[in-house]
């Protein structure tokens, strides 16, 4: 929780993708390089089986990892996801979803991150690992 207030320094307002996913920052610790974010599993994210489409779960994990990487990179560098690998452990019904993410390795040019996604009952439902490259920012991270 200690660093949650810092998010507006880097991201003056939530991005459209964060807003549409119902992004809500629960905790941010830039010493431990970890964060916890709540998302909203909305009915319109559901697939034919009536559960949240896997890609949207990835979008939530990518949004969380991207935010954490952006906080670490600051205003002068922009993290871009190079690859993202997700295992889907169990289906997720609509409702509150939480993602915990952490940066495992931080280099000058690359970041490596991982995230877990929990359903409304707190069960681990998906897991991702990602690599991100750090590019110089041509324009500051802009508002939605």
């Amino acid at each position, binding site marked *: 929780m200690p660093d949650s207030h810092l998010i507006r320094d880097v*991201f003056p307002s939530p*991005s*459209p*993708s964060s*807003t*549409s996913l119902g992004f809500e920052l629960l905790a941010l610790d830039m010493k431990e390089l970890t964060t916890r974010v709540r998302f909203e599993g909305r*009915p*319109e*994210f*559901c*697939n*034919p*089986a009536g559960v949240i*489409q*896997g*890609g*949207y779960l*990835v*979008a*939530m*994990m*990518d*949004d969380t990892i*991207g935010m954490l990487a*952006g906080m670490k990179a600051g205003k002068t560098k*922009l993290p*871009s*996801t*190079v*690859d*993202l*690998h*997700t*295992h*889907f452990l169990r*289906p997720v019904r609509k409702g509150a979803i939480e993602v915990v993410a952490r940066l495992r390795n931080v280099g000058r040019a690359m970041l490596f991150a991982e995230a877990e996604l929990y359903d409304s009952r707190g069960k681990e439902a998906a897991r991702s690992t990602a690599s991100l490259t750090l590019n110089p920012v041509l324009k500051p*991270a*802009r508002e*939605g």
Partner: protein
Amino acid sequence: MAFDPVSFFGNPANAPPIAALLGWKLLEFDADKGWIKVGFEPKPDFLNPAGLVQGGMLVAMLDDTVGPAVIVASNGQAYTTTIDLHTHFLRPVKLGPITTEATVTRLGRSVAFTEARLFDSEGRLCARATSSASVGPMPGGANA
């Protein structure tokens, strides 16, 4: 009666909420080759802080291509639950129409293996994914 992907995917009963949200549209298919081409219409609220289509949204589109590819390849008999999905993000994607293609590499009795590619509005390859999915019967049968 032979399985007809056009009438199957054109049936509102087979159009999940996620398809409407992503602007999903069947463009072409070849059941014998296990190949499908899909169009998407990203919305402004899919954008990340850099003003580009958020990577997870691209994964949602790739996920929503590999699943239907298995439906087409199995003549409407198989419905998939994604086990894993690995995406490489080759270049950023600006707002505009997106097309995807997926091929079923192997359709086994219990697991389907697929590959998908995503192109931006100028036809440039922007993302690539490989996926595995468990195969089960179509919910509610395969009636188009």
